[in-house]
Every structure is written in structure tokens, then in C-alpha cells.
């Protein structure tokens, strides 16, 4: 069930240049059951910024009633978030949307997880769950450069991990798709999250027979009521069909959405 709670910050760390890892505690965590879902949050009750900000759930720790997000401090909302310290409160609405179907990967199979930039975080909880289910995971993580990279160690602890940076300052030089091609990575299923252009390229890879992608769009309500975040289905004869990224997604089967 969707809840709204003033959750307590238990940890806030800058883990890369302008990239923060924040852990929040509260009863709302009991509702978090799936990787790839997101929360919609507000650092305070002020009118600027007015709207909430969607941030993916990167790690869930039910026993501690904690979850972790990883976000880039960019504009007004995420910068306000970055000012929070342990003990402070954050207004969280969630969990929202539909996440990655973990059970689509069967025990013993291999899953290819491809993330770009701030699309990497939701793949972490996904990978943990896949590994817990006996699924082998291969991770391909793309970043702008070394300074912007994060969580490479954590992914490595879960499985084979490749890193690509645009400037070559860490791992392979190039895009995530270059890495998949270069090492001829193959899997039974793929899961991907990142910029739309990246997702488009990922869908064209032949690395796995099927997969899931997670999309981003500017949001108003985050719950499906305002029609801010719609996208076109790939198959739409009428021209008026739509999918809402916040409530039908953000995760969709690859090929379902017109990118």
C-alpha cells in the first residue's frame, strides 16, 4: 500500500562527486516488496521546490525498517535533500510504481543488468534479490567518468561487473553497449535502467531473448492521477493509447514502450 511518512535519516554519505547515499528509516519500509519501485519525496514542507522528486529504491533492509537511495544532487530538490543529516526527517510517499519482476529469471539462469548513471541504483536491490534466488548476475555499469562512479565494489561482490566511462577514466572507455558488444555478453534475461537513449540502444542489443527496462519522465503526482508522465505503447493503432510511467511503470517489458 502507498503510504506517506516523515521518515528519519539514519545515514547520508557523499559516495562520489555529487552522488549521495541516503538511508531512511520508518514503517513505510514494510510496504517495500520489489526492486525497481520508487519513492516520491520532499525534503521539507516549503513551497520551493513545490513538487516531490522521484528517486528509486536502491536497497531494502526490512529487518531494520530501512531503505537506501542513491541520488545525484542536481537541482533544488536533490540539493535540499543533500543538506539532510542523520536524525533529520524526509517526507516520503511510496512505494510507487511497478518494479522489476525478479521471478522472471529462474534459478541457475544468468541475468544481465545494465545501468547508466543514476539508473544504476535500482539494479542493486534487484541484483541482491536475483542472487538470493540463485540467479547469476552480470553487471554493466556506465558512468560519465571515474569521479561520478559508485557502487562498483558492491556490484562486484554480487557478480561479474564491467564498468564503462565516457572518458575512459575508469574501466572501459565508451558506453555500456560497447562493453556488452566487446565482451559478447549473453544472458537469459536482461534488466536495464538509465537514460532513454541508452535504453533504446540496450533494446537493440541481442544479449538476451527478453528483458525489462525502467523509464524516467518528469512527474507531477507520481501515482497516476495527473497524466504528466505518459508514454506511447510501441503498438498503438489508435494513437491515443498510453502508459503512465509512474503507475504502469517505471519498469516495462522491453519493446512494450515506444522509446
Amino acid at each position, binding site marked *: 500500500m502507498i503510504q506517506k511518512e516523515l521518515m528519519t535519516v539514519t545515514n547520508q554519505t557523499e559516495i562520489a562527486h555529487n552522488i549521495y547515499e541516503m538511508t531512511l528509516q520508518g514503517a513505510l519500509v514494510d510496504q517495500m516488496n520489489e526492486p525497481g519501485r520508487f519513492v516520491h519525496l*520532499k525534503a521539507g514542507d516549503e513551497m520551493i521546490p513545490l513538487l*516531490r522528486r522521484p528517486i528509486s529504491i536502491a536497497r531494502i533492509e526490512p529487518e531494520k525498517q530501512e531503505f537506501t537511495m542513491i541520488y545525484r544532487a542536481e537541482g533544488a530538490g536533490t540539493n535540499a535533500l543533500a543538506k539532510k543529516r542523520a536524525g533529520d526527517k524526509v517526507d516520503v510517499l511510496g512505494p510507487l510504481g511497478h518494479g522489476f519482476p525478479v521471478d522472471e529469471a529462474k534459478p541457475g539462469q544468468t541475468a544481465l543488468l545494465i545501468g547508466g548513471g543514476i539508473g544504476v541504483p535500482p539494479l542493486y536491490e534487484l541484483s541482491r534479490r536475483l542472487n538470493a534466488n540463485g540467479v547469476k548476475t552480470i553487471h554493466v555499469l556506465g558512468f560519465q567518468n571515474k569521479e561520478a562512479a559508485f557502487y562498483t565494489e558492491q556490484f562486484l561482490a554480487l557478480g561479474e561487473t564491467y564498468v564503462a566511462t565516457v572518458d575512459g577514466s575508469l574501466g572501459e572507455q565508451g558506453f555500456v553497449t560497447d562493453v556488452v558488444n566487446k565482451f559478447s555478453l549473453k544472458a537469459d534475461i536482461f534488466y536495464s535502467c538509465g537514460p532513454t537513449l541508452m535504453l533504446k540502444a540496450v533494446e537493440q542489443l541481442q544479449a538476451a531473448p527478453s528483458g525489462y527496462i525502467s523509464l524516467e519522465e518528469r512527474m507531477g503526482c507520481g501515482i497516476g*492521477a495527473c497524466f504528466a508522465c505518459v508514454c506511447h505503447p510501441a503498438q498503438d493503432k489508435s494513437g491515443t493509447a498510453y502508459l503512465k510511467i509512474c503507475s504502469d511503470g517505471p519498469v516495462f517489458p522491453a519493446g512494450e514502450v515506444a522509446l
Partner: protein
Amino acid sequence: MNRLTIELPGLSLKNPVMPASGCFGFGREFSQLYDLSTLGAIMIKATTEEPRYGNPTPRVAETPAGMLNAIGLQNPGLEKVIANELEWLKQFDVPIIANVAGSQTEDYVAVAKEISRAANVHALELNISCPNVKTGGIAFGTVPETAKELTKRVKEVSEVPVYVKLSPNVTNIVEIAKAVEDGGADGITMINTLIGMRIDVKTARPVLSNRTGGLSGPAVKPVAIRMVYEVSQNTNLPIIGMGGISTVEDIIEFYLAGADAVAVGTANFVNPFVCPELIEQLDGYLEEHHIDHISDLKGRSWK
């Protein structure tokens, strides 16, 4: 909660607080969060004769104490709204105000005729003020004679009272209000959004793909209050006031300006529980301030 009941044409309201059109969809999402029967009424998303996808994304942008939207009247079309949405809404004990939109008079008439026959639709809200569509919409809301004529035509076919939703993007809102009164409107809802725009300084392009959008939220409240203040003194129509409401004090301010009930739009995105919270707080406010009935406040700033 006797202090909060309101009688308006077609509407017997438990309380004067309702979500504004376009900020609540058809209620499905919010029904997961609280019981919709607690609401005074629900203004559902604009309905057009045919399904509409609306404008390309991005459709929303933030502004200081406000937001811009250019949804473009996305909706599944008259048939589906009646068959799926209104049907589904019947489970709740709450009157529906159907927001009616179109590109030409015939569209409005066709939608009004059908949708006003739905059992739980107690009133229509004639949307002559949507800034986000190329034809129709706001065009009807800026010329008094056109607004009057459309109101008349819709009144002829509607089975329920007709409220006309006014655009703030006009030189003289009183003139438009009087015109729709002449056209036979039963009430007025106001204000729709102000036309605004944001440009991304990094890309040099408008943030919204539709370029311009409708400005809503706390930033526009002073404009809304001013217009309700003027219109309430110059027509005899009841007014459902909106524009930037997010607190009980805002509701009181709209009443003092001359509103008979209020709608809450953008604030539903900031806090999806805002409507039931406001209803409860409003009752508390009246009790604390020894006000027997909310309607005692109507127009007190000018009476």
C-alpha cells in the same frame, strides 16, 4: 459536521472541499489512499467526445511556488469515461462534477448531453479555459459573446446544472462572468491556470514540449483571490473558488473573497492526502473561531 454542509445548484455537499479537475484523474489512484466519500465532491478530469492523448512530454515544469502543466486534455473519451470511470465511481457516496471540453460548440454539446445523464454526475463544469489546446478551450473563455452562446447551447441539453470554468487570462473577468450568467449558467468555477512558460537555460528550449503551459499552485493565489473578489460582487452566481489552495487559511481566504465552495488542484500532488486533511482541519478551524457555519464567511471582505 453540520458547519460544513453546502447547498449549491445540483450539489448537496457534505463539505465544501473538492479536488480540482485534472489534478485527481477519475479518482482511482486516490481511492487507494483514502475513502473518496469523505470529499465534498469530485471534479473529474476533462472529458472530450473522442479519446485524446494530449501533448508530448515533458508536460510539467516547476516554477517558484508553482508549476506549469501542458497535459492537453488527455482522456479516454466520452464513451469510456461513462462506461468505466463514472460507473466505477458509483461505489462512492460523492457527487461528481464532470468537466466538459471540446474544440467546437458541437463537441461540448455532445459531451454535455451524454455525460449529464450519468446518475452520479450532479453538475457539469464547462471548461472554456484550458490553455493547453490549440483550438477550442480558452478561445471560448475569452470572448464574452462566445462564452454566453456556448453556455446557452450546453444548458439546452444538460440534465444537470452547469458551472462554467473561467480563465484568468482575460482583461475583464467580470465581463465574462456576466456573459455566462446571461447565458444561463448555474454557477462559476474559477480560476483555471494562467498561461506561462519556462525556458531551460542549458538547452535554450522551452521546458515544456508544448512550449507554454498553465501556471497553478500558491504563486497564482493572489490572482485567484482578486478575481473571486470581483466576480462575487458582480454576479449572483455561486462560485467554486480555486487557485493555489493548500492550507485551511487559504480556504478561509477564498470564502472571505466571495467563494461558496473550493477546489484543490496542485496541492494534491504535493500531498495526496491534502483534501481529507483540509476537510478535518476546516471543521476544527471553524470550531476554534466560533464560526457557526462556513458560509457565514462568504464575501466578508467586501460585505
